[in-house]
């Protein structure tokens, strides 16, 4: 089954968890919750705006986690936090990971902590029962790719393109080759993200990997004022495209590790 992980900036609107529940209803396998950072250097204009909007509303890590706890009873899919190093290391990665776990979050993605800087965070995440998901890029050399595949938990995040996040006209040509190279070095699912903007692009990516992360295309809609219902329809469109790919392609391989993200 191809996985669908839509992204949502925590605290972007007062009722932001309604979007989370809408994603779930639309068939998301997991949701990536962005903990907004003042200086998101791996993000393009849309996610920057989404982060700024949330921060201007005065949200904090605590307020976002409290909002999640408040809807916890309704959340059946895994939640993955996505944020930057400074928030993770502020009070130490041990404290940070425990706080995430306390709010029911089970995965963590930190784009500015490459594998070489990940040691202490890795240990802290493991201790708190959190999967530290590592990212690989089109320029990652084979030996590093193998190390990323070995040390990542939950899945490996394939950064589809040499660019920041942001919508694109077409799936980058670098996406499929990277996913293929990753699948040769890891048994973990390989999810492709960055710039996947339409159900058609998602399907193309899913043919090369095990699923997709959709962020800017959704957050643009939220920034434009679209409702949770609108976003449910949007995510359902991506779900349908991935299900279509599943029908075309018999399950090529089993992913025992993925169970945590696919209850």
């Amino acid at each position, binding site marked *: 089954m191809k996985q669908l992980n839509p992204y949502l900036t925590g605290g972007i609107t007062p009722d932001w968890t309604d979007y989370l529940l809408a994603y779930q209803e639309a068939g998301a396998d997991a949701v990536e919750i962005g903990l907004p950072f003042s200086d998101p*250097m*791996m993000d393009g204009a849309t996610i920057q705006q989404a982060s*700024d909007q949330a921060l201007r509303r005065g949200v904090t890590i605590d307020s976002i986690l409290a909002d999640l706890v408040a809807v916890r009873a309704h959340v059946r899919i895994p939640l993955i936090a996505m944020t930057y190093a*400074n928030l993770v*290391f502020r009070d130490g990665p041990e404290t940070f990971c425990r706080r995430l776990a306390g709010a029911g979050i089970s995965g963590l993605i930190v784009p500015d902590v490459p*594998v*070489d800087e990940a040691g202490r965070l890795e240990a802290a995440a493991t201790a708190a029962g959190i999967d530290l998901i590592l990212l690989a890029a*089109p320029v990652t050399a084979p030996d590093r790719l193998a190390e990323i595949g070995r040390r990542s938990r939950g899945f490996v995040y394939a950064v589809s393109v040499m660019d*920041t996040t942001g919508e694109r006209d077409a799936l980058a040509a670098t996406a499929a080759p990277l996913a293929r190279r990753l699948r040769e070095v890891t048994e973990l699912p390989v999810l492709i993200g960055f710039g996947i903007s339409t159900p058609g692009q998602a399907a193309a990516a899913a043919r090369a990997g095990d699923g997709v992360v959709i962020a800017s295309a959704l957050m643009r809609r939220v920034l434009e004022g679209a409702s949770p219902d609108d976003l449910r329809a949007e995510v359902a469109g991506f779900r349908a495209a991935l299900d279509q790919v599943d029908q075309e392609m018999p399950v090529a391989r089993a992913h025992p590790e993925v169970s945590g993200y696919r209850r």
Partner: protein
Amino acid sequence: MGSPTEAGRFGEFGGRYVPESLVPACAALEAAFRQAWADPAFHQQLSRLRTEYAGRPTALTPALNLSADLGVTLLLKREDLAHTGSHKINNVLGQALLAQRMGKTRLIAETGAGQHGVATATAAALFGMRATVYMGERDIERQRLNVFRMELLGAEVIPVTSGSRTLKDATNEAMRAWVAAVDDAHFCLGSVGGPHPYPWLVRELQRVIGEEARAQTPTVPDVVVACVGGGSNAAGTFAGFVDTDARLIGVEAAGGAAMTNGSPGVVHGYRSMVLQDADGQVLEAESIAAGLDYPGIGPEHAHLGTTGRAEYRTVDDAEVLAAVVRLARSEGIICALESAHAVAWVLRAAGTPDLPTGSTVLLTLSGRGDKDMAALAGEIR
């Protein structure tokens, strides 16, 4: 001031906190730098550029009138006399040579005061490269002259409208642009921050300030002082005196004092002292000097500061304006607002236990004040 650890650390600071997409580019730059730094031909090229193009060595000027007034011996290391008007050229000429060795055809830079942008545009013109300079909208307004200089030199200046619209955000945007252009572009970072190897590389390229000054001073001064934004002119100056008994003093802008008021954090690819809130959101700095209007500081300074080898002080905007005027009217030298921070500290400290009467002070005057005339006109009558 030696090499950082293999992981690019100075004590607990430094490192390489960049997206995976940039790791190979940082590693390639490190390899190119190690190779070039061990190659006499590289040093020969650099040394020729410094003397024939940049006007080095720069003078050491005794500030005779101020010295008499203050009761200290004040020596000015005149980076304001270097080509393009500041120490930034030292760094950029070295990085442009490295970029050329790596086969890059384009330089991407961030700039605050515009001096680093001008230096980058200058080197790009000389080396036949394209230059793209990211500059906060607010800095574009207050350093217009430098924007015009960059454009005249053929560089593209891209206004940055996010966040505080200053150096912090220009740095974010330059790093984003680098991700999309790593194949043909070198990120020509302007100070001793950023991911490994930049803090080390930029300090080594600025070391010429301290080494020249050491050779130009008959005896080791009691105090060595420089302004600190990211900290490159200070690091280069300190490098010439770190093995002596001289006290090393870095002067921060009161509104951008990462060392004095910050706490450990990770921004722009390195771990150092950062102005931030309880969650780790980076705070906006606020200084009249665009080049010091930055919430971080190079990791080696954080190390020198926490180990006590260097000390950091702050001065406020009013002291800085007064210092520009005082230096101009007593020595006939109009310095940059950034450099005036170091002067302001000397004016305040002279005759106090922090800088006792009779002391000899070496002060790096990092740049000239032409760029600040419009801003100063509104402040000074």
